[in-house]
C-alpha cells in the first residue's frame, strides 16, 4: 500500500437535486470516491457560512456545496442565495491562506447521477493534487 494522501471532503447536498442524484448514482451502481462525506440539507440556501468555516477549520481538505440548477430550486431561489454566500466566503477565506479551490459550488440535477459521480471524482483528484489543508497540520484556535 502507498501512503497516498486521502483528502476529506465535506459535501452539503440539497435534498431535492444533488442528494437525489447521489441516490441515483448509487442505484445505478456508479462509484465515487469514499473521501466525500455527504451531509444532506434541505436546500443549498440553508448552508450557513459558519458550517463551511467550521469544516475547513476542523481540517476538511475541501468543502462542496451542491444544489439544484438555476431556476429549479425547490424553494424557488435558495440556490441563488447560496451562490452569494459562496462568493462571500471565497473573498474572506483567501485572506487566511485557504485556497479558493477548497470551496466549491455546483448545480447537479436529480437525474444527473453520472455528472455527480464525475464531479466527485474530479474534485477528489484536484484536492489530492492540492495537498492537505493547513488546518490538518495546524491546531485551530
Amino acid at each position, binding site marked *: 500500500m502507498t501512503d497516498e494522501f486521502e483528502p476529506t471532503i465535506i459535501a452539503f447536498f440539497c435534498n431535492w437535486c444533488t442528494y437525489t442524484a447521489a441516490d441515483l448514482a448509487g442505484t445505478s451502481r456508479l462509484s465515487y470516491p469514499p473521501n466525500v462525506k455527504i451531509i444532506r440539507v434541505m436546500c443549498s440556501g440553508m448552508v450557513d457560512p459558519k458550517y463551511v468555516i467550521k469544516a475547513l477549520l476542523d481540517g476538511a481538505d475541501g468543502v462542496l456545496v451542491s444544489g439544484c440548477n*438555476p431556476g429549479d430550486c425547490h424553494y424557488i431561489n435558495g440556490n441563488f442565495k447560496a451562490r452569494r*454566500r459562496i462568493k*462571500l466566503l471565497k473573498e474572506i477565506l483567501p*485572506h487566511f*491562506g485557504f485556497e479558493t479551490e477548497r470551496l466549491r459550488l*455546483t448545480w447537479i440535477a436529480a437525474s444527473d447521477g453520472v455528472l455527480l459521480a464525475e464531479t466527485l471524482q474530479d474534485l477528489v483528484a484536484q484536492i489530492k493534487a492540492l495537498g492537505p489543508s493547513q488546518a490538518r497540520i495546524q491546531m*485551530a484556535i
Partner: protein
Amino acid sequence: MTKTFKIEVSEKGLLKALRGFFNALLEQEDIHALLAPCQLPSQTMVMPTLITAGERVNQIDPLAPAFPMNSAKIASRLTRKSSGGKIAALMRPCEIRAFIELVKLKQGNTEDLLLIGIDCLGAFGNRDYQLWAGDNGDDASRQYAQEVLSGKKTGRDNTKLTQACQACEFPVSETADINIGLFGMDTDREILIQPLNDKGAHHLNAIDLPATEIPATRAKDIERRISEKISFRDQMFAQVGEQINSQKKLGAFLSSCVNCYNCRVACPVCYCRECVFVTDVFDHDPSQYLSWAQRGGAVKMPTDTMLYHITRLAHMSTACVGCGQCTNACPNDIPVMALFRTVAQRTQAAFDYQAGRNLTENPPLSEFKEEEFEEVVGIN
C-alpha cells in the same frame, strides 16, 4: 444651488457657538429631543445623551477626541418604533454610516430623525482619552480642536488617534441631513452649516442663520486630510494582510483573544439580536471537549476562537464602517478593526458595495440576481 449657512464664532470659542446652534434647533417645535455627545458631569468622558431641555446643551461636546461607543446603536434604539416625536441626532460620520446599515436591516428608521453630521476630528482610545483629558473635558476639547483644525500635531503629549481614525477616509458625512463643516473654515470666525437634502434645508430655514458661501479652501483641506488617511489605510491593509495570510499567522494575530465577545457587543453593525456564539449551540457537552482533545491530542480552550472571528466576518464585514469600536473594546488590545477592515474592503468591493454609502443599495447578502458570479460555480 442649495443655500448654505454659517454660525458665527465669538471669542468664547467653537463649543459655545455650536451649543448656541443646538439650542436654536431644539427650540423648533418639531424637534422634540436632541441626541448628542455630551460631557458627563465629571468631565472625564463624553457619552451620547438625549437632551430635551435647552439649558443642557452646555454639555454638548462633539469636538472631544472621545469615542467610547458608536451611537448608531443608540439611534437604532430610539427609532426602531415611533417615539412620538422627532429627534435630531448629532453623530460622527462613521456613526451615521453604521446607522444607515441598521436602517437597511430594519433596525432603525430615519423618518422621525434629523441626522446631523459634523466634520470628524477623530478620537483617541478610551483609556488614552481619559489620561489625556483628566477632568477638564471642555478645555481639553477646545485645545484639541484648535490643534487638529490648524493642522498642527495633535495631543499634549504623544497620544495618538486610534488606528481606525487614522485610516478613516470618510471624515466628512455625505449622508446626513445637515453637515456641520469645520475643515477649511476660518473656525475662529465661522462654522459652516450645510443642508445635504430637503429635510435638512427645511429645518435650517426655520432658524435664522446668516447665509454664506463654501470657501474654496474647504475642498482642498478635506482632500488633503483624506489623502493622508488613505495612504495610512493602504499601508495598514498591506501590513495586516501580511500578518494574517495563513491560518498559523491568523492564530498568532488572535492569540490573546479570550472569547469575551466584547468586539461584537461594541460593533454597531453586528445585527443579530442574539449572537449564535452565546447560545446553546456553543454550550458544548464536556464530553465533546474531551473528544476534540483526543482527536488532535490537544484542544485550545476556550474553543472556536477563530471560528467566531471568521463567522463574524461572514456576517458583518459587508456592513463594516471601520469605526474601530471593536479594537476599543478588546481587553487584550487585539487590533480587531485592522483585521476586519482589511477583509471588509475586499468583501464590499466584491459586491460593489460600500457600507453606509446610501439608503438605497440593499445589503449584498439580502438580495441576489439570477445571473451573476458564474465564476464561483463549477469545479473547473
